[in-house]
């Protein structure tokens, strides 16, 4: 039942203190005064609690179990992070307070930036973007500003591999580039010949993620970087997959000029049903002057926001970004330290390879190469043989109490299932998941209808999203 159907006129869950100031009627022209109150629900406090307790019980979450959503790095979200972010000194401050009195907040931003620069091998960074895609837009606007600042007006192309995440081309387009798709090799890697063919003085940027969306490390990265730079273009790093390589190799060292990160992936900030995240963008020093304003700097042991960047691309959002998410990432980095972060990457890679090994015994893996922190199952043979779709397998997994992997992405793998266990999962969990998946594959061969009609044990069963889009219902409407 929706919250609106639980509403009873006159019920209330709130009470406010007296301000000792007389209530006034609005002295505002009548046509600007609201005639019909918005139909918000009227509830008691227990009503509210029960409504959302009920909704909560209908959600799968990391705290509940295994959530191997490829590309999303659903690692465990430490409880201490929630605590530190809720400290009054962080949550109860106004962004326009005099900066002398928000030195703690500015210190967090500054030091987090330093940490992340060190981890990525970049020279400067903005923490303003609110998510990965937001960071991509920021980074691509920086690339644009850079070329324009050199008077180089003809670089209108962004090269994006066909294996890239959808946000890459979308962000490139928002930043004004024409997107040219690079076909990958059979292996799912950058095809050097293809790259060469497409490089020209019209190319502004090549966007990559490394390891790429197949979980494979682009071993030719140094070569690629050289080619791109020789062509006068910039190399952009989508940091979604940084969780594989921390403490071993850094995007900056590989030749990347611009990097975005996802604090809600690699740095353990929770995903909040879809956000908020945080998408810092790091750059090599020659691009620092284009960063969004303000940039946080330190002088004489004081931190301050610097608005004086005449070449800045400007702002990409209000204030300083998702500050409380930064507090969580900062807490996490202090907790993990250089040793812990390195260990995390190594265990993430170990987990992925172990699970890959188990699953390879009964499903095809898209690439024969050792994977990094994730891998992709190629379900095409399975689908052909059983008539069961990868989507069906995903739904059936829900019945067994685990979350499904990312499906049908990356687009270059047919019937893809993209699996990222992360380092916080244990061997037992991976064993269990592999066993479940194997059982489903078995079911698909012997009793395919069971799988095709799954799920059965979820709060609702298979939902009709086709009709939902064809005849969209955007909001609750009272009957009659």
């Amino acid at each position: 039942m929706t919250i609106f159907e639980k509403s009873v006129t006159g019920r209330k869950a709130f009470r406010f203190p007296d301000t000792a100031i007389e209530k006034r009627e609005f002295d505002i022209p009548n046509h600007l005064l609201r005639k019909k109150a918005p139909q918000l629900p009227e509830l008691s406090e227990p009503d509210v609690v029960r409504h959302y307790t009920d909704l909560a019980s209908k959600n799968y979450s990391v705290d509940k179990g295994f959530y191997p959503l490829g590309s999303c790095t659903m690692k465990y979200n430490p409880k201490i992070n929630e605590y530190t972010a809720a400290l009054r000194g962080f949550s109860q401050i106004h962004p326009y307070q005099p900066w002398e009195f928000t030195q703690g907040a500015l210190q967090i931003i500054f030091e987090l930036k330093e940490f992340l620069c060190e981890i990525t091998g970049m020279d400067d960074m903005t923490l303003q973007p609110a998510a990965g895609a937001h960071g991509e837009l920021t980074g691509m606007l920086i690339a644009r500003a850079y070329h324009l600042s050199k008077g180089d007006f003809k670089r209108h192309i962004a090269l994006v591999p066909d294996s890239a995440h959808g946000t890459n081309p979308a962000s490139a387009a928002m930043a004004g580039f024409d997107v040219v798709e690079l076909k990958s090799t059979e292996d799912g890697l950058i095809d050097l010949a293809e790259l060469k063919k497409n490089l020209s003085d019209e190319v502004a940027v090549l966007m990559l993620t490394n390891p790429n969306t197949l979980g494979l490390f682009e071993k030719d990265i140094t070569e690629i970087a050289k080619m791109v730079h020789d062509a006068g273009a910039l190399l952009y790093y989508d940091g979604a997959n940084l969780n594989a390589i921390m403490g071993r190799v850094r995007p900056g060292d590989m030749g990347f000029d611009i990097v975005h990160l996802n604090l809600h992936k690699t740095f353990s900030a929770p995903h909040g049903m879809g956000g908020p995240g945080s998408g810092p963008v790091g750059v090599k020093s020659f691009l620092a002057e284009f960063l969004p304003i303000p940039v946080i700097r330190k002088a004489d042991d004081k931190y301050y926001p610097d608005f004086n960047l005449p070449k800045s691309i400007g702002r990409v959002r209000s204030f300083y970004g998702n500050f409380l998410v930064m507090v969580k990432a900062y807490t996490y980095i202090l907790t993990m330290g250089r040793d812990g972060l390195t260990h995390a990457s190594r265990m993430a890679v170990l987990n992925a390879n172990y699970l890959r090994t188990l699953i390879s015994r009964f499903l095809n893996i898209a690439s024969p190469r050792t994977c990094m922190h994730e891998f992709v199952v190629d379900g095409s043979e399975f689908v052909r043989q059983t008539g069961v779709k990868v989507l069906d397998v995903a739904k059936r997994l829900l019945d067994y109490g685990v979350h499904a992997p990312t499906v049908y992405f990356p687009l270059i793998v047919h019937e893809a299932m993209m699996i990222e266990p992360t380092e916080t999962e244990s061997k037992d969990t991976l064993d269990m998941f592999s066993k479940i998946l194997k059982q489903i594959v078995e079911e698909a061969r012997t009793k395919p209808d069971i799988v095709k009609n799954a799920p059965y044990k979820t709060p609702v069963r298979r939902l009709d999203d086709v009709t939902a889009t064809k005849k969209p219902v955007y909001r609750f409407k009272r009957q009659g």
Partner: protein
Amino acid sequence: MHPYIPHTDEEIQQMLHAIGVEHIDDLYKDVPITVKELKIPKGLDEFTVLSTLESIAQKNAVIEKKNIFMGAGIYSHYIPQVVESVSSRPEFVTAYTPYQAEVSQGTLQALFEYQTMICELTGMEVANSSMYDGASALAEAILMAHRINNKHKVLISQAVHPEYIQTSRTYTCAQKLSFQIVPLNGSGMTDTAVLKNSIDDDSCAVVIQYPNFFGIVEDLRAIKEVAKDLVFIVVAEPFALTVLEPPATFGADIVVGDGQPLGIPMSYGGPTVGFFATLEKHVRKMPGRLIGETTDVDGNKGYVMILQTREQHIRREKATSNICTNHALMAVRNAIFMGVLGPNGMKEVAYKSYSNAHYLAERIQQKGYKLIFDGPFFNEFAVRMTDDYDSKWRKIFQHGVLAPLPLGWYFNQYKDGALACATEVNTKESIDKFVELLGRDGI
């Protein structure tokens, strides 16, 4: 061993054995080593981390709620504890985008209800399930306007939040959109005469804030009259919408704003959430995620993501936006907050804010300061202070009061100005105290 990473040495050996390699480094064969040791501190136990963070937090001055007289996009309101308790449930916090709808009905229904509430507040027909913040929501609205009519000139009121304008400029700089700032008249409203004269064939949209940055309630009807053929974008404040006629009534095409006032702590400005609402006829041009109602195979009601072909994961470079991770948790927080306050609580906050702001304005005026504009205002107003106001403002802060925003930060012409705000958290006593401080010698 790290508390978050479960692997024992024995398990690592078993796993390596199963994979068929000897060392973890064997898995990294393709990967060069460029780092010997990261130059960040070694990992710490949680108690040391906690005391470190606590001492950093101490370096931020927390002003008592009642002594905050600044808004300018981030507002201090009461947040009932139940909002915090419910929205911090791990089932909400540690889930992701509802890719598997059948195990995400909590998320989906909560967002569907959020969308409905935003529709109710704005009067619009469709709302998406969140944007990053108000500023980026406006930027996306302008991009959407451009998609609607393919025109290039955006007429934007001078009384739109300066950071929203900056953000919109950044977002749109590559789209060959030009911005023309429309000045204000003496009452602090966007000058409709100038607006009218500025409209030409290539004019895409008009952007008005409601109430505007200076607190003045804009006459949306008058705007619409002169800008009939433009995409009409309104940036609105949610509490004001409970007492002001919704933008839809005046023909708004897109209404955006920031949800921070609705149960989100000030948080140094983030995370907040952007709301985004429009008309059904524009829906396919709309950015962001939409949740819709449907049924499952047994005929039970359920919720799913709809119209995904607008989005980046399907439409890629042709998507209506690049947004992927949005601000769902904050949107649900808004919904929980509105569920607690209901229409009457929302209205009570609006009335109290209005009454307090007007009392504050009177008291300040009694001290001899003059309001900059004479238009009707809601809970913020601009007042002329003195040329040294910025330093006065810092001094007042040291008395535990966050005084009105120095307008000189953003507006040369209001160098001596301040933008004052009051909400339901202020009291007669706190207002009187602030006004006394304002008039005190040596401050």
